[in-house]
């Protein structure tokens, strides 16, 4: 029975991209195609693009990524706890709460360190 559920999802993952692919196939057949050098230029407010388009970006994006990683791993640990909460003893629930509190401590540490500021 479980295999059947996952088979359905597998088939869905194969069929779902077919619809947008079909929709993109039609313009390939009927739409006009008259490219020229000016039309194919990168848009930049009517100016010619200067330099590489893959520019350097703020390091802040990267730091947010690191903070996110901590929480993402935490959530993987918390979901089994959440599912089993009703059959767990009170002690285990409190233990889970202490685990969350340690993470909140981590968040506040990052906050005090100025990681969450946008310079």
């Amino acid at each position, binding site marked *: 029975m*479980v295999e*059947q*559920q*996952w*088979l*359905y*999802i597998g*088939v*869905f993952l194969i*069929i*779902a*991209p077919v*619809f*947008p*692919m079909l*929709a*993109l196939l039609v*313009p390939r057949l*009927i*739409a*006009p*195609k*008259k*490219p020229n050098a000016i*039309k*194919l*230029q*990168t*848009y*930049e407010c009517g100016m010619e*693009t200067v330099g590489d*388009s*893959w*520019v350097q*970006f*703020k390091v802040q994006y990267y730091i*947010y*990524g690191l*903070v*996110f990683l901590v929480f*993402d791993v935490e*959530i993987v640990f*918390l*979901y089994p706890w*959440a*599912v*089993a*909460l*009703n059959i*767990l003893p009170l002690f285990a*629930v*409190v233990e889970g*709460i202490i685990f*969350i*509190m340690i*993470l*909140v401590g981590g*968040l506040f540490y990052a*906050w005090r360190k100025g990681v*969450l500021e946008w310079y």
Partner: protein
Amino acid sequence: MDPLLSIANWFEGVLVGWGLAPWAVNLILSVVGIVLLCTVMLVIAIWCVWVERKVVARFQDRLGPNRIGPFGLIQPFADIIKLLIKEDIAPKGIDKVPYNIAPILALATVLTLWAIIPLSPSILGSDINVGVLFIVGIGAISTLGLIMAGWACNNKYALLGALREVATMISYEVPMVIALMIPVILASSMGINKIVESQSSYAYIFIVPLAALIFLVSSQAELGRAPFDLSEAESEIVAGFHIEYSGMKFGMFYAGELLHAFTVGAIFSSLFLGGWSGPFVDRVPVLGIFYLFIKSLFIYWVIMWIKYTLPRLRIDHMLSFNWKFLTPLSLALLMVVALLNKLLQNADTWVYVLGMLAGNILVGWVAILLSRRQVKTPRKEFAADRPVARPPESAPVTPIPDPGGD
């Protein structure tokens, strides 16, 4: 009693009658079901274009599309014909593979989300026991499509849009996933159908309204809709990630975004509003589809309401709002709900409901109180009073001296 189920059973009988193996019968039934579901969803996506344009028109005191067909109902189909015959301009220097995959990914993942949403008690695509994680994972892949688009376009604006999209997604994913954990705690299952079934006596929005609100706000950000639409902020980075897309490829992003909003409505109503449950649904299961549709449409309307009412946030404000307010709030709510759920486990239903509601309201109230105290810093620099252009009435009017001469 259930017409759709009886058609499916009849079809299964026909296939078995042909002497096919059980797995082949299963596969064919799955394929037919999926093709039907995807077609219906795409028609809904097209119809969502009309709904969206009509609603935004009413919000802005306009009429909206009203020329083609009754109430402009045929307008989106005319738009599709226009998009189909537009030239597909792919600029120089693009990264070809991600550029072409991105629009397909943006729509296909949203369609895939419907694999696990139970439409009615008898019609569920797939009742997997990790449904909530599936929603989070597939939703993130849909955002990945937008990031790929921004990266591949060889355009600085598009890259900035993609980076903003990354920051938004990884930030707002945290409160969203934590808010999703709360229905999981209440239903003690991650399967969407189990969560819907356990809301038969009361919908979860009545006992955990704060979790529902956090989920709505963070999925609004995940959708990239105003006030969080920084990835395509047209006044700052022109059109963001889809700046270099034209024709049907742009249409894929557009349809994907609208259908994603509707899908978030369906997920929200399955998790917090009771999904397909409603009066008479146990006798006439087909009614479940109708109830789910109405509830999803209502949430879709709420999302549009927020979108067209609030102005856009600045990126640092948006990330601060998430990391300094929404994430601590959702963690606190998770702790309170877990503890209350354990303590009130054996209490009467009404004690349980009222206790949960009180806990939610208390957490929200304390959070607002704390944040108000935090942001109440005195404004030191007031601008000085501007000089009045004209002297007050009582002041004597100095006559303009006559320059003399002629």
